[in-house]
């Protein structure tokens, strides 16, 4: 089972990318996390550029989502909302509507910020966008606040938060398994 992990932050030492690396170690077998490394290569959405000859960066994103059974997004929060590049990537992934690669695909959203709220507003808005796209949004949240102090090696320093992240991965995997059961 493949879970595509998308970090909404492009920064080399991103807390959200680190959060996804922690998540990778918690994925219950047979789930495996694959970190998407092409977010920066997704161009600005332009319907004139879309279609069979969509730009390579957008095609890579769509293909990676299509190959995955589920998606885990870790988002920072810029100005109380979704980072522009992440929103732009979701806009590419949402097309063509309604039968996009995200259609009915289980997606969970987590987030980290250096502030005291752990990107809760950005997470809520990513869930809203995913719902409008038609993804199967797992109704969970993981606010990792004070991100500079939140990690201890390859774990979250807060034991409860770490367990909660493991639980979120379990719920994401269950959503995939339920989908396979319905299809069987």
């Amino acid at each position, binding site marked *: 089972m493949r879970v595509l992990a998308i970090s909404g932050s492009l920064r080399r030492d991103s807390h959200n990318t680190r959060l996804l690396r922690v998540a990778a170690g918690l994925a219950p077998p047979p789930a495996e996390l694959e970190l998407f490394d092409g977010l920066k290569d997704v161009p600005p959405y332009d319907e004139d550029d879309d279609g069979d000859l969509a730009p390579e960066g957008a095609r890579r994103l769509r293909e990676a989502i299509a190959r995955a059974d589920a998606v885990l997004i870790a988002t920072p929060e810029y100005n109380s909302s979704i980072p522009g590049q992440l929103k732009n990537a979701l806009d590419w992934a949402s097309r063509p509507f*309604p*039968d996009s690669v995200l259609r*009915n695909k289980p997606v969970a959203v987590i987030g980290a910020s250096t502030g005291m709220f752990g990107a809760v507003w950005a997470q809520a808005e990513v869930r809203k966008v995913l719902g409008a796209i038609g993804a199967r*949004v797992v109704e969970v949240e993981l606010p990792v606040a004070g991100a500079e102090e939140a990690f201890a090696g390859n774990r979250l320093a807060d034991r409860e938060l770490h367990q909660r992240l493991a639980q979120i991965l379990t719920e994401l995997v269950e959503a995939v398994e339920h989908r396979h059961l319905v299809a069987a």
Partner: protein
Amino acid sequence: MTTLQATAIPTGVWKSDPVHSEVGFAVKHMVVATFRGAFTDFGVTLANDEGEPRLYGAVRTDSVQVRDENLHGHLVSPEFFDSERYPEITFTSTAIRADGSDLVVDGDLTIKGTTKRVEARGHIDGPVAHPAGGERIGIDLETQVDRTEFGLNWNAPMPSGGVAVQNEVTLTVHLELAPEE
């Protein structure tokens, strides 16, 4: 209120005619308007062949008919009916009775995996002879539900106040039924 005798409902097993029947809904939209939609793929049975009469049926959620493909896409998505996981809405009566000239049907309505008891009111007419042979009966029923009780929670606040779609939804069935062949 009196219990409707089985003899007040035509005996036998009756099936809905898909062309001359309708299963629809109406909900307040944009605060001031009434938005209507319907389902095109459904089947309803009135069985009065043994014991208490029963009315039951199922609706394919992905057959919801609205005049915009993007809205259809939204309605069948996990945020609304979630047709992949919950392909059908079902209804099974638990009691059918008369209240004056009204037909009252109590039953279990299941939407998106949640079952609630509802009371639908309307009337039953016929049977009448069909020119092509056999007989037909008509049943009209209406009930109100709170869609959020079934997990249909999507909404959007309006800039001037209120929300895009009200929670209370009117469900209606207009059925023409023919004897089961």
